């Protein structure tokens, strides 16, 4: 009886031992290395393929981006060139007898107009000055002389003062839009250079203006 009991205990211990210590250890040690090797290789290959693909895609994309960028840049350069050409085409040389130097007038730099005996910028004309400022930003080498003009009414001397003020309030507005003051000079012609020589409201309204002359391209 005691012997049988002892055998059972030993068997139990053995079983326990096998279950809890021997067997699992042996199974893992025996089977895992072969499994891992296979998987790793496969995974590596897959990863490498993925990475390669990604790299290639990235390269393709980068290339595409670069091509696009180049295209955009080219387009921009083309546009800039076109704009520059358009600007240059718009320039009309103005040489005035008895006045030193040559200046250029551009239809792209629009004149603004004033009320009688006033020099403040009209709200509607602020848009014109913003467009003019945009053009000046586009061509940073361009320098302009702003001419202040008046209609013929009133006295010549007071109109010279008024023209000075009109030119300078126009200049100040452009400076407030970020155009450097070194690019903007002013001159008052008072009532001496009317655009329209007629003596009526329509002509006077045209003549009360600030006009832009390009002094450097």
């Amino acid at each position, binding site marked *: 009886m005691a012997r049988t009991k002892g055998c059972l205990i030993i068997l139990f211990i053995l079983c326990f031992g096998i279950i809890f210590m021997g067997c699992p250890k042996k199974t893992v040690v025996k089977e895992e290395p072969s499994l891992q090797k296979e998987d790793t290789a496969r995974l590596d290959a897959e990863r490498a393929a993925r990475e390669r693909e990604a790299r290639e895609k990235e390269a393709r994309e980068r290339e595409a981006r670069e091509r696009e960028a180049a295209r955009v840049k080219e387009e921009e350069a083309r546009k800039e060139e076109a704009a520059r050409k358009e600007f240059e085409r718009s320039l009309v040389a103005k040489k005035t007898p008895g006045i030193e130097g040559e200046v250029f007038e551009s239809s792209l730099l629009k004149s603004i107009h004033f009320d009688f005996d006033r020099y403040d910028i009209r709200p509607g004309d602020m848009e014109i000055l913003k467009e003019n400022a945009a053009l000046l930003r586009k061509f940073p080498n361009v320098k302009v002389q702003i001419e202040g003009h008046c209609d013929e009414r009133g006295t010549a*001397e007071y109109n010279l003062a008024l023209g000075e*003020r009109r030119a300078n309030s126009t200049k100040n507005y452009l400076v407030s839009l970020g155009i450097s003051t070194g690019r903007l000079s002013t001159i008052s*012609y008072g009532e001496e250079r009317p655009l329209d020589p007629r003596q009526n409201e329509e002509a006077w309204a045209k003549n009360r203006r600030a006009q832009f002359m390009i002094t450097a391209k």
Partner: protein
Amino acid sequence: MIKYLVYFLIFFFFYLPSAEARVYLDINAPAFVQIPIALSKWKSVEKTPPTLTAKLYEILSENLTFSGFFKVIDYSQFPSFLRDREGVPSTLVLREWISSGGEILLAGEVALKPDGLGLVLTCHLMDLIEQKHLFGKRYEGHLQNFRGMVRRIADEVVLHLTGERGVHSTKIAYAVQQGTGKEIFTTDFDGANVKQITNNQSINISPVWTPNGEQIIFTSYLKRNPDLYAIDLEGKNLRRFSFYPGLNVAPSWSPDGKRIALMLGMEGKSDIYLIDADGKNPKKLTTGHGNEASPTWSPDGKRIAFVSDRSGSPQIYTMTSEGTDVRRLTFEGNYNTNPSWSPRGNRIAFCGRVGRQFHILTIGADGSGLQKLTHLGNNEGPSWAPDGRYLAFSSTRTGGSKIFMMNANGSNQRPLTSAKGGESSPAWSIRLE
């Protein structure tokens, strides 16, 4: 011979003028009646060509009329028995001459010397009401100065009858539109002897005379900036002497001739400054944010009148020559510009908008007694004669802008030249003798 080349005159008093010279015309009165002056036919002595005498008669008549003080009665308007009487009548027969219609008689003779170059003019002025001789004078000079001699006679008549010399030796400078530019011209006070001074196609504007009358200073755009230049009366020796950035405009000499008040725009707007006669040492007189324009000195050199829009519209102000004690002078209307201080000191002429038109007005230096002098067209740029008895200005009353003249009270307005238009900013010289 040399004595003929130099312009000189010799006066001979044939009779002493009456001890108490009566002033026939108070030209300071706001309104005066022109003195009717009979101008009898002048005698051509010996071989003097009658055409020369006729020319003298014409110039004399024009000059007397131009003074604004006289109503000239031409001998052709005389009753027939007086019409052809030449030379100087005896005081004994003056009674007959009252029927000429004149209160004063101016008679005389012209003698061209045998050399054909020397000229002797003799004139006598008589009071037909009181039947007495007023003065007799003899002028000797060169034929070349014929017009100057005749003007001298007119000047003498003005002195005798108004108590002050006339302006017969003065000139007027002004700007004339030519194409898109303007050139400076001068003319004698009566519109004779029109002469172009600048010829550079630029914009040459607002001329004034230097105090000695030998040069004209003006603003020109020659260097693409309104700078101040000086030039002589032959149009030579052009010199740029004030060229600060921006405006260099509307100069006015201090009475001592040492400084110039003017508009400078170096701070981005027009202010009144003083500079030395050579353009140096600018000193700013006006402060604040207004447009300041057109300075003009008082004849005592203490104050300067100018335009400012500091109130919201251009008005006339005065200040000391240091820029202090600023006083507003004009309160009527919303556009008063272009002040010009009378050499007499008491009044300031200016251009003001009345209704829709611009007119010449005067106001007392203390702001009292506003007077409107013009009534037709647009009128601007008043400039006083050196005696303060006349004003030159520009007017569009006959179409284009032309130089006109009038007496200081607004009477006797007439165009200066026969030009069609385009004339502006007259400046009257001192007496040039």
